[in-house]
């Protein structure tokens, strides 16, 4: 009986899961899109997320809160001062001892420097500012070299590989082990965070990486982490480490 069971197990056993994609094989998910979508992303005049960049550029100069200061009053021309910044987020914040993603950092500036209210997650204003700042890193490689990020990266990796939801899947099962295959109509992407915030055709709007993570969790029939939570920021931090070296593409377009 035991021998039969062992034989059955051995016959049916599949090779161990592939694990992280080798660094040399990691590439932007833009490359697996249709030529039409790639053209739409590449052309600022056709890219629907360009409106979000313009929103952010305008907001950059709008005074807000008790300080009466705008982003530009401290940071000057965003096209200069924000170059390469988004490629390094999420980043460790010494003041709070927390890791903050770009949206959390923008809201920290608003509440603590400008003396204004935090912008709601996924609001047009917050997405506009994040898209505008992200745009200033377009073409620059993702950098993830701060050792203080290690705990968040480890936690994010653990969450990425954890089975969850009624369907008992993990992020890694699709995006490490089966990228390039077909999940229904969709080509499974490697899932690199190169292009956020981005315009997603399925949303008909611009959205953040956290919104995308929430979509995937609901698809697995798993309870999503709260927006802005340390868990989501840990996953974002891990994904930036996993995608290190890839060129930023914000604002992206995705199906």
């Amino acid at each position, binding site marked *: 009986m035991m021998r039969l069971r062992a034989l059955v197990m051995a016959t049916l056993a599949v090779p161990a899961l592939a694990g992280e994609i080798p660094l040399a094989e990691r590439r932007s998910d833009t490359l697996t899109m249709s030529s039409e979508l790639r053209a739409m992303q590449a052309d600022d005049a056709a890219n629907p997320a360009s409106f979000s960049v313009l929103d952010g550029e305008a907001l950059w100069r709008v005074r807000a809160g008790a300080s009466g200061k705008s982003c530009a009053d401290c940071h000057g021309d965003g096209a200069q001062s924000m170059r390469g910044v988004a490629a390094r987020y999420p980043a460790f914040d010494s003041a709070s001892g927390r890791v903050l993603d770009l949206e959390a950092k923008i809201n920290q500036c608003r509440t603590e420097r400008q003396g204004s209210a935090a912008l709601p997650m996924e609001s047009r204003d917050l997405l506009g500012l994040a898209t505008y700042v992200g745009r200033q890193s377009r073409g620059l490689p993702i950098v993830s070299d701060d050792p203080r990020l290690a705990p968040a990266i480890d936690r994010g990796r653990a969450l990425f590989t954890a*089975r*969850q*939801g*009624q369907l008992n*899947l993990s992020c890694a099962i699709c995006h490490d082990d089966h990228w390039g295959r*077909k999940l*229904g*109509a969709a080509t499974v992407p490697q899932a690199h965070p190169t292009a956020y915030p981005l315009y997603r055709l399925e949303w008909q709007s611009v959205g953040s990486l956290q919104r995308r993570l929430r979509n995937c969790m609901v698809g697995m029939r798993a*309870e999503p982490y709260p927006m802005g939570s340390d868990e989501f920021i840990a996953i974002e931090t891990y994904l930036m480490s996993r995608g290190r070296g890839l060129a930023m593409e914000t604002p992206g377009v995705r199906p």
Partner: protein
Amino acid sequence: MLRLILALGAVLLGMAGAGAQTLPPILNDAMPASLTGAPGDVARGRAIVANRQVGLCLLCHSGPFPEERFQGDLAPDLNGAADRYSQGQLRLRIVDPSRINAQTIMPAYYKTEGLNRVLGPFAGKTILNAEQVEDVVAFLMSLRGEKTP
């Protein structure tokens, strides 16, 4: 009358997809006995397999569904399933494939324990109820020979 009430109760429980009841015994890599004590319905099983909100099967598998575009390729083609497996083997592979391969990516369709962070509306519920599992088993048992979609 009592028997009718009991039978009705069992049907309602099954329809809700509530927590899996006591399972029939597992023999080697198979669950030979029906979950409901009755055979399933091939046509209903086909509809469940094709439905992307109910069976979800075609997200990962392909099969003899010429009318269905965009079938997945993360998992084996369902064509010829009955040539490869017995009814009991197919049943266990739907009820809980992790009993055969702990690494499998296929969800357990009739299991509620051992899951994490299950989204509210699905908490404590199986993906399919017992009758639906039997319908899918009946449909898969009809897939003999290499039928081209």
